[in-house]
């Protein structure tokens, strides 16, 4: 595996890993909730919250939505 170039890149990559782990945990929770819960309204509500959280994390951390209004960072 090639080495990472700069300290800045390492920080960014580590943040990515953290976000990915959080997403993975949420997915597992979704699955467990789905197989163990019987009440449909509660299930729908919980899944909606989990999916919303995952969507938020991906758009904010992976897709950098804030660059839309903050502009491109100078390097």
């Amino acid at each position, binding site marked *: 595996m090639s080495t990472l170039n700069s300290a800045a890149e390492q920080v960014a990559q580590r943040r*990515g890993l953290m976000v990915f782990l959080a997403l993975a945990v949420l997915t597992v929770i979704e699955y467990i909730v*789905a197989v163990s819960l019987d009440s449909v309204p509660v299930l*729908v509500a919980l899944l909606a919250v989990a999916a919303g959280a*995952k969507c938020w994390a991906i758009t904010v951390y*992976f897709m950098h939505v804030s660059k839309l209004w903050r502009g491109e*960072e100078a390097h």
Partner: protein
Amino acid sequence: MAATATLPHGREVDSSHAARRVRINRLGLWLFLASDGALFALFAASRFYIAGTAISPHLNQLLGLGITSLLLLSSFTAYRAETAFTHGNTSHGRMMLLATVLMGLMFFGGVVYEWSIAEFSPSEAYGTAFFSMTGMHAFHVVTGVFFLLLMWARSGDGKFTGGTNAWPIAAAVIYWHFVDVVWVFFYPTLYLLK
């Protein structure tokens, strides 16, 4: 040399012509994704309209969890690729692009397998939702793989490396994340209800 402008709070923003162009392209891409997302949302809403929250008991739940995890992991490698390219790390970025493509193809293979073993037909209410939604999503997966492959093929000489040069990579990766976001909603909608 990049032109910079310092905003309040001491944050530096690239104000060069290239950065301006990236900003314009970025808004265009996001608007396109919002528009595309509305199409997916309409199909998801239709699922509840015609089939309620019912799902087919014949679904292979482990397969569903498997391909979902795979797509999530590919989003992570896509993130690694983009980050590497923006920080000038061409070789690692290209490797991560290939990894993303590979997992994208495996996801697609998973959907095809799922279709081939499905014990329900598209003419049932749930089947209508399942086949149309996964089919539309799989079409986006294929186009995403195509863009990522194109980026991999063209990034060898380093022309997409560093700062604003990496925009084409970033665009393909943002598109890929969007495909993942759609699945974030489609997975519970299609697999996890009862």
